[in-house]
């Protein structure tokens, strides 16, 4: 093994700046995709319970199709295949406004939305039907039953799987480097390209991801314990 370590590449030159901007892009990309994913997850999760069949089929199709195809394929699809189908006005606007980033948010958000939908569905399904019946029997309206009984329990139940999916989303944002979004992994590669110090660059990127994941997980673990329902949910010691 002939490798000369030179850790100073991480704090000389522009490395620090690159890592920081990569981290910010990763966080921005993940946050926007997360909002999109939660919105899509709620809408499709709700649509899967309605009586009108075509809507239910549409939601099921969305969930099953998008989550069963690799995210990388969706990245290429949103980046290469969708823009040419759009009206030329929008195309021109997108080209001037970070097309890669927008495509990355769409790919990551729509893909993760299908996975969030499953988390929400299993959360709501795990609440016994009798809870709802008991609420209405004691005189609550349907809205009140959801507001005060079903949702407070369901939201707590989905904290652990929801955290795990959110961390998956964060880690999956690294795939956006394939459509040249300058996120953390992309910047790590850039440092490697400029300095030829692969191990140092990868160590820096890896540590940032680890710190991000572990800190989000521990905050959510704390939230989970604070909001645990005594006797109903055993507060998870594990974070995934």
């Amino acid at each position, binding site marked *: *093994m*002939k*490798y000369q370590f030179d850790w100073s590449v991480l704090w000389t030159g522009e490395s620090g700046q690159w890592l920081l901007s990569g981290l910010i892009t990763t966080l921005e990309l993940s946050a926007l995709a997360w909002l999109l994913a939660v919105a899509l997850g709620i809408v499709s999760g709700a649509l899967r319970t309605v009586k009108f069949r075509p809507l239910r089929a549409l939601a099921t199709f969305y969930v*099953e*199709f998008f989550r*069963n*195809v*690799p*995210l*990388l*394929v*969706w990245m*290429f*699809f949103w980046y*290469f*295949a*969708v823009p*040419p*189908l759009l009206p030329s006005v929008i195309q021109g606007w997108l080209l001037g406004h970070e097309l890669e980033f927008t495509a990355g948010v769409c790919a990551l958000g729509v893909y993760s939305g299908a996975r969030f939908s499953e988390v929400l569905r299993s959360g709501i399904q795990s609440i016994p039907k009798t809870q709802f019946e008991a609420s209405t029997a004691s005189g609550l309206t349907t809205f009140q039953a959801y507001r005060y009984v079903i949702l407070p329990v369901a939201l707590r139940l989905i904290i652990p799987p929801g955290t795990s999916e959110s961390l998956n989303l964060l*880690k*999956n*944002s*690294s*795939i956006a*480097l*394939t459509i040249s979004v300058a996120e953390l*992994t992309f910047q*790590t*590669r850039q440092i*490697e390209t400029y300095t030829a110090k*692969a*191990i140092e660059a*990868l160590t820096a*990127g*890896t540590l940032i*991801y*680890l710190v991000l*994941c*572990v800190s989000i997980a521990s905050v959510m673990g704390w939230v989970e314990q604070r909001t645990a329902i005594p006797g109903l949910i055993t507060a998870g010691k594990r974070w*995934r």
Partner: protein
Amino acid sequence: MAVMLDLDVIWRNLPFLMIQGFLGFGNFVGGTLRLAIPSIVLGFILGIFIGIGRLAPQRWIRIPATLYVEFFRGIPLVMVIFWMWFIIPIVLNQAIPEYWVALTAFVIFEAAYLGEIVRAGIQSVPRGQVEAATAVGLTGTQTMRSVVLPQALKNMIPSLVTQFIVLFKDTSLASIIGFMDLTKAAQVVNNREIRPFQLYLFIAAVYWICTYSMSRYARHLEKRLSPA
């Protein structure tokens, strides 16, 4: 909209996409299946050791196994692929083909997830089984091999199929380092034909058919194997 109707591009390139990209026979080293199947087999073997290690009474085994799992579950797979891509040539002092880089990365990465499945499987075996095995005079290794693991394996099958689906989708990331899998094959064809809509939707459909049928199978197994 005439672009959308040109499905001929799929037909013309079907042998390259499927035989080279999906199966892995042809002039390039590649193949989604050729990478996915050895990855799950080897990853599972490593995962068994990690899963048992996570439950070991000895701290010097349990702590490294736990750190292994937490480390690899805290970083993106893309990072692991790049690590292997750069570190293997440094350690071995020579370049190795993309296939081996990708396989190593997948085995190491997936073993962390498979290890957790193995651990959950072992924990699902009732304690009485271990006690009974010890009572009839089996050693620890014998108990693990002939009593606990066979029962645990049965409980693990649905999660294993699910994890295989994840791994199957993840193999598309090997295209980042130039491995000629289905995704890379579509990219190559697209560079020549410029029909991204048809090509990417086609490979999405191929991936979907495989993963969806596997997930149906997992659901079927779950129903059949769950105690009534």
